[in-house]
């Protein structure tokens, strides 16, 4: 018997200037993983926010257990059995895991907060679904994958039957994705239903029971995973044929650009984050740094570009010493850095796009002459880049915060790629981007390589590493566990290395 637990009918949601959802309908059955597939900006998140009570729909109706309802707010949604794991985790960083889970559904003991009995209940959930987590850890100290688990437990603790996972794999390593899928399976096995929002085709085929594809706010098709293939889904999702594979020439490594010897980096508390790491990158090759999030890659990048100090070891760029060089020095040595957190690190949101385009070259001619900024030059430069890199904005004088989605990434790429560089350090260059944008960025990275640039790509997306890299360095626990040529190793082998398993 098919039991529909959630149905949305003709949901329409308009924002000034855009129709985010245009008469969307779909059904979620009990015990089903229903994938909502669509590019960024297709309207998936808006739809989920409507279901979750964060937005009011302009038209349409939601049915829960075949009963028409109006979800007032998230609290109401939870009460009706809908839980949501947001793409940006809704966790209080300084709280313990336990505190984060009980927040909003606290039990009390007289006036006091009672954490004892929830602890037992939560432990039960943890055991039941094999979630393995320490409830007393401070949340911000946890790796992303585990934080996501906290979100799932949060929902389960509220006894939801329907779980909405918004791009849950975007930030996960392959192993973590596997773990997540296991958890999802065990959830549906025990009677929960899941809405799985993603733009990753492969995952959809792997895990979903039913697929609904959304494009520009409309449902453009649906499929069963066993009837669909990646290519057809991609075409449906993007609205045109997509080249799924990168075509790149074989690398022709030339002179040495980056040399790292015995590098050690410690964090503020003295914990070793990067442990005796040595490697080199030559002009004309792409080296991928693979590894599960939190194994020292972030610190490695930050140390290389001068954002954090190194403990010991040496770094050379173009044969010149660059150990503990300032970010500016590193930039001036001809390197570009695409930071991991694009919203926070690489840009100043209240500034204009033009100012962001010169964020690390503002002091150089022609943007400044003897300490005085040359507004005209900056504007000209920015307008040019906006056009060249297809940054979607009415004007380069608009603030960076007005940009949407992938345009943030394009803005940074435009700035970093526009300089003459011979070293490109890209951290998670495509995180959270849609297929079209990923395709675009990958091509640009390869283009840079072919121009003779040494490229270091740090990614937790194994596919990305496999596709882009000429050589792959796998980090585990702050150490380089192995360095391999990309065409001599399978994805599965890299995955094992990332888990710390050496052959």
């Amino acid at each position, binding site marked *: 018997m098919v039991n529909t637990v959630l149905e949305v009918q003709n949901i329409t949601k308009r924002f000034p200037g855009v129709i985010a959802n245009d008469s969307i309908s779909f059904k979620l059955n009990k015990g089903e993983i229903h994938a909502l597939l669509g590019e960024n900006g297709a309207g998936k998140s808006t739809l989920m926010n409507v279901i979750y009570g964060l937005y009011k729909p302009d038209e349409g109706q939601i049915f829960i257990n075949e009963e028409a309802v109006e979800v007032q707010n998230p609290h109401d949604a939870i009460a009706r059995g809908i839980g*949501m794991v947001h793409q940006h985790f809704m*966790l209080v960083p*300084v709280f313990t895991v336990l505190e984060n889970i009980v*927040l909003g559904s606290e039990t009390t003991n007289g006036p006091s*907060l009672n954490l004892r009995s929830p602890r037992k209940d939560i432990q039960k959930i943890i055991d039941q679904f094999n979630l393995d987590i320490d409830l007393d850890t401070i949340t911000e100290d946890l790796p992303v994958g585990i934080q996501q688990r906290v979100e799932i437990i949060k929902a389960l603790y509220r006894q939801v039957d329907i779980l909405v996972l918004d791009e849950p794999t975007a930030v996960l390593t392959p192993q973590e994705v596997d773990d997540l899928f296991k958890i999802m399976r065990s959830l549906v096995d025990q009677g929960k239903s899941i809405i799985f929002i993603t733009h990753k085709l492969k995952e959809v085929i792997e895990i979903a029971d039913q697929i609904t594809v959304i494009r520009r706010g409309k449902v453009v098709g649906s499929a069963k995973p066993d009837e669909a293939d990646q290519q057809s889904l991609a075409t449906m999702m993007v609205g045109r044929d997509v080249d799924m594979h990168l075509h790149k020439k074989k690398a022709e490594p030339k002179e040495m650009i980056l040399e790292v010897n015995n590098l050690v980096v410690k964090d503020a508390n003295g914990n070793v984050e990067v442990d005796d790491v040595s490697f080199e990158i030559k002009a004309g090759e792409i080296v991928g740094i693979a590894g599960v999030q939190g194994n020292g890659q972030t610190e490695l990048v930050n140390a290389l570009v001068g954002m954090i100090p190194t403990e010991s070891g040496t770094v050379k760029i173009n044969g010149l010493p660059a150990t503990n060089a300032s970010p500016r020095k590193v930039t001036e040595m001809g390197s570009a850095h695409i930071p991991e957190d694009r919203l926070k690190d690489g840009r100043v949101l209240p500034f204009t796009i033009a100012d962001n385009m010169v964020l690390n070259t503002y002091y150089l001619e022609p943007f400044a002459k003897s300490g005085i900024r040359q507004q005209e030059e900056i504007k000209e430069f920015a307008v040019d880049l906006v056009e060249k890199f297809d940054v979607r904005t009415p004007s380069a004088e608009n603030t960076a915060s007005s940009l949407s989605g992938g345009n943030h990434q394009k803005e940074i790429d435009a700035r970093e790629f526009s300089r003459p560089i011979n070293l490109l350090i890209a951290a998670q260059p495509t995180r959270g981007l849609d297929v079209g944008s990923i395709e675009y960025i990958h091509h640009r990275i390869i283009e840079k390589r072919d121009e003779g640039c040494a490229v270091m790509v740090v990614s937790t997306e194994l596919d990305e590493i496999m596709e882009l890299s000429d050589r792959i360095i796998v980090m585990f626990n702050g150490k380089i566990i192995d360095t391999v040529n990309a065409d001599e190793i399978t994805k599965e082998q890299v995955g094992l290395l990332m888990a710390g398993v050496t052959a």
Partner: protein
Amino acid sequence: MTDKNNNQDNKFLKHLKKNWAKYTVGILLIVAILYNYDRDPKVTQAVLASMVRHSTPLVLGALCGLIGERSGIINIGIEGQMLISAFAAFMTTAYTGNIIFGVVLGILTGMFMGYLLAIMSIALKLDQIIGGTVLNILALGITSYFYQVGLSMGQKILPIPLGKLADLPLVGRVLFNNPPITYTTFILVFVVHYILFHTKWGLRTRAVGEHPRAADTVGVDVFKIRYVNLIIAGGVAGLAGSFLSLEAVGSFERAMTNGRGFVALAVMIFGRWTPFGAWGAALLFGFASAMQTQINFSGALDIPYQFISMLPYLLTIVVLAGFVGRSRAPAASGVPYEKEG
């Protein structure tokens, strides 16, 4: 089992390692106090009792500030809240002759000021520094404009010795022979700590101050938490005002807060946004103030008195720079919350 024990040992060691400076200073202080008490009980008592008196309005002001900031609203209007409450408390007492009415009205006035700040920073989304500044200037203007000459409230609030406790050596005079608002302050430190860290309301408050969106998504009413907390915090500032006019002085004078609201702000940050931290910081400042007076009393230091006068301020800076260092404010404080959609 042993593993767990080990773990706990480790935690303890880690804690010690991290806080050794605090503990060392604390132990040294206690030793020094006891030594002095042995040598000159009267002066030691006098200094410590004065320390408590100096610290009371600062603790209350800091509590007001931190309740607000813990829920995400910066409050630099403590000075104004205190001043206008002191005024209201005094006027009420002068007209009704009833000190309890005065205290109640002082608190209510503080709450109203808190409500004003809440409207400005939550509903109107004014910059919170502006909201606080508005309160400060407004309070100064209103109290001076409506100040009346010749009013008298009779006797100010008297100390209530707590039975036998008050006869204890040293602590008796310092802790257990105080007027009621001072006792209330002691209790409030514990109460605010308890509420912040051991109740549902406190958990939600801290969540709202750190990550309001997260709190919102689990059904916590961000605005309600902020409103209520700011009003309660205003009440605490109101109590501080009542303390100033009814308990400490027994009269109202224009601008009688004399910057205490700002020092309270410093005390709050110094105390890392925790009630006990604020208490400690206020006591430190109070101790330095009392020492400054005592040095002048003793006439022992023959240097221009302005240098002695700098003592509390310099000591605060030195301790802050030398021992406390960086502190982390609640992440969302100062940022107006916008609901989605």
